[in-house]
């Protein structure tokens, strides 16, 4: 499973003081939206039963967040750093291999 590439050199946005913000809140690093954790919006997460999965890739294509990636074994799984828990993968899975499970608080 692909890990989210989170840069650690800079402070997380939530820790920046007002003095450290770029002029006009410009973003100077292209593609740094990858550092934005969208996974914390989620109330339910997709859990894959690999014994049912036939590696059809539909979840990979349907994921609106593009956060489903191939595992070393050739299965597909969502990166929970980004997954917003929309449930589309579970809905579309022809093998019912994906279950949406309540996040534990």
């Amino acid at each position, binding site marked *: 499973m692909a890990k989210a590439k989170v840069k650690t050199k800079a402070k997380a946005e939530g820790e920046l003081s*007002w003095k450290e*913000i*770029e*002029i006009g809140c410009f973003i100077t690093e292209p593609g740094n939206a990858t550092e934005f954790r969208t996974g914390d919006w989620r109330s339910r997460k997709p859990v894959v039963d690999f014994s049912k999965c036939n590696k059809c890739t539909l979840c990979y294509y349907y994921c609106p967040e593009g956060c489903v990636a191939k595992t070393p074994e050739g299965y597909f799984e969502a990166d929970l750093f980004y997954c917003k828990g929309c449930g589309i993968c579970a809905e579309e899975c022809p093998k019912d291999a994906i279950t949406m499970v309540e996040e534990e608080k």
Partner: protein
Amino acid sequence: MAKRVGLEVSVAVGDAAKLANVDVVAAYPITPQTHIVEHLAELVANGELRAAYIPVESEHSAMSACLGASAVGARTFTATASQGLELMHEVLYVASSLRLPIVMAVANRALSAPISIWCDHSDAMAVRDTGWIQIFVENGQEAVDNVICAFRIGEDRRVLLPVMIHLDGFSLSHMIEPIILPEQSEVDRFLPPYNPPLPLDPEKPVTVGAFAPPFIYTEVKWAQEMNLEAAKEVISECWQEFGKTFGRYYSPVESYRTEGAKVLLMTMGSLSETAMVAVDKMRSEGKEVGLIKLRLWRPFPFAELRQAVKDAEVLIVLDRALSFGGPGGPVCSEVKAALYREAKRPAVVGFVGGLGGRDISMADFEEMVSQGIKIAQTGSEREFEIFGVRE
């Protein structure tokens, strides 16, 4: 050496933008601003000004085009008034938040309805919270000088904010006045080229105007506020430097014959000229009356104002705008707020007048002073007084 010539103030404002060597002008004509942008369009069309003139279909588009131009690093100028300024409203916030030093001349005009093409400050006051620097001028020379200063102030790395130069519609914009246009070489020395820190550049891409979640928005807004606050120093510094170079000095709060004055009038814009003559007359009659002219409206010069009025007993503030259902004129309520924490402060009496081009004469100022003194002694049931309304 620059010569003093007779010029329509609007034309002179256009010439000042030319002297500042603007790269882009995007504007939509509206009375009484029209002559400013007409003149600039002519200068560009005649090849006298090497700039892009972007004719747009509305003021909303004008300011939007200015945003883009300024973001790539162009020195950008526009002008508007009244409804035009209001149509720009939402884009004004974007300009200041993105820290783009656009300069805009505003030929102050009343707001509809009923339609009025004449001057008051309703348009200027409605945009006071948009994060722009707002400077009021009282004659044509001041308009020219401050358009040039506006670029230097706004583009300063310590500021990077847009600037509005407020000149009263018709009573300034359409007057022919003796004006000194500085020499190009002098302006070039005074105003360095615009060198933006983060221009839009394909070689070094940046994202402008991205979204900010709740965990960062407050910090961004506070940075903006601190920046506008810090701009005060740069503004004063620029005016000092301008004075040294061109011999004409400006300051955030200006005092006229205030020595020993128990009563102070306070005005903004072109009426200050009439008020000065009224003060001269009252002084000649032995009345201890002086005048405070507020030049810098945003960022508000709290310290300078407190200093300027501290010895007065009565301060009579004239506003040319109404804040409906509120405490009266915006200037007066700001002044009251500024003085609230002072142990010793003058009694503040607020008048609203000069709306929609209604003239305020010398005699009116005298009347305002005598009414103001009376109200300061006896108090009033109202939060503010409306001047000259027919019952």
